[in-house]
């Protein structure tokens, strides 16, 4: 079971590594690169908390192998803010109480980023449909939907 080379760019920084082929992308990000913002939830593609963007597309990083990410550009929650300046989505989640325990938040934010990138002025129904793959056990989703709509307003203001 030989190791495999992986070259990835994560949030603009390039990394070279040798990985066990069975290593999931989420475990690579967390354990090898120390980027623990991306959360491991169900590890079976149900909860969405491990959502990251691979070449701009949201994927479940628990169901992708690290070796499959070779040559890709990955965006994780750590890449959202500019230094102390939070991303408009983060500000909106903060102000609209779009999180309580925060476990689902990194996945929610990355999926929301993609939703707004493809549909800058979504309706509430489109946001609800868009985050259907991200489970939250605290908020009942209402504040998350309001946060994403608020972030859309900020970006379009």
């Amino acid at each position, binding site marked *: *079971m*030989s190791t*495999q080379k992986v070259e990835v760019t994560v949030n603009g920084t390039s990394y070279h590594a040798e990985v*066990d*082929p*069975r290593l*999931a992308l989420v*475990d690579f990000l967390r354990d090898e690169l120390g980027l623990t913002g991306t959360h491991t939830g169900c*590890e*079976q*593609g149900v909860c*969405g908390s491990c*959502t990251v963007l691979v070449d701009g*597309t*949201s*994927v*479940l990083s*628990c*169901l*992708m*192998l690290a*070796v*499959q990410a070779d040559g890709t550009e990955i965006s994780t929650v750590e890449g959202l803010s500019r230094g102390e300046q939070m991303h408009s989505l983060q500000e909106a989640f903060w102000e609209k109480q779009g999180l309580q325990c925060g476990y689902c938040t990194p996945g929610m934010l990355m*999926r929301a980023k*993609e939703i707004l990138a493809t549909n800058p002025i979504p309706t509430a129904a489109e946001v609800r449909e*868009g985050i*259907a*793959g991200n489970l939250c056990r605290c908020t009942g989703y209402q504040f998350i939907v309001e946060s994403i709509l608020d972030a859309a307003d900020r970006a379009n203001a």
Partner: protein
Amino acid sequence: MKSAPFSYHAPASIAEALVLKAAHSGNSAILAGGQSLMPLMRFRIANPANLIDINRIDELSYIRRVNGTLTIGALTRHADVLASTAAQVAAPLLVEAVGHVGHAQIRHRGTIAGSAAHADPSAEIPAALMALGAQMQCSSRSGTRSVPAEDFFMGPFSTAIADNEILTEVRIPEWPEGTGSAWLELTRIYHGFPVVGVGALIHISDGTIDRASVGMCGMAGTPIVSEAATAALVGNAPSTELIEDTTSTAIDGLQPPADVHGSTAYRLRAGRAYIKRTLTAAIRNAGGVV
């Protein structure tokens, strides 16, 4: 839980993949979107010694219309089908069914052929392919054979793909212009796995149904297509009575397996309701008045 160790192969061509599949016959799995296989490997239900990742084979990603047939490559993802005008025109039933598969992240990675090869009896895609009369192209080093969907799905999570073969393409014959189709399903949670799903295709000519097909998931150990429903519909004018009679005929004799999501009796009742609704919708989409 983490997967058991395996040897990883990432072939760059179909030919290379087929050589690997033959070399590791009986001891390998094909990794396409991974949205079903990866969880199985994590639960250690699937423990392939060799994982053959086809994601680097660009020639397997396509949607084409060729002589009245929609062809879909083994690496074509659900999201590709949803975004495809060709698929929407040639097989709207498939596109409608794909819209119910998982959620956005799943559809970004998961593939049509992967869902077919996984052969979950409660999943949308195998049942839609049955209703559509799809042909499954199974390739090996010695060539490609075309397996009709009804011979392809052999049991729960079991297909006609041989150990040395890869499902390289799905071929869907186009139905005539004016065909009405519909896919409806019952789920426990939003975008969850269907307890029961029904897909129907109806073509009406001079007020009479001249072609019809009804596929179902969650109603047997495999996806099924109801020949009894086709026989009951063809040659008749659409009416509420015809829908009632066809629904009873299609349900008759089915014994859906019970599980935590529904007993046999529950699935029969749900199946009856969903066949009726789906037939009504498909007939209306075909221009019929019911």
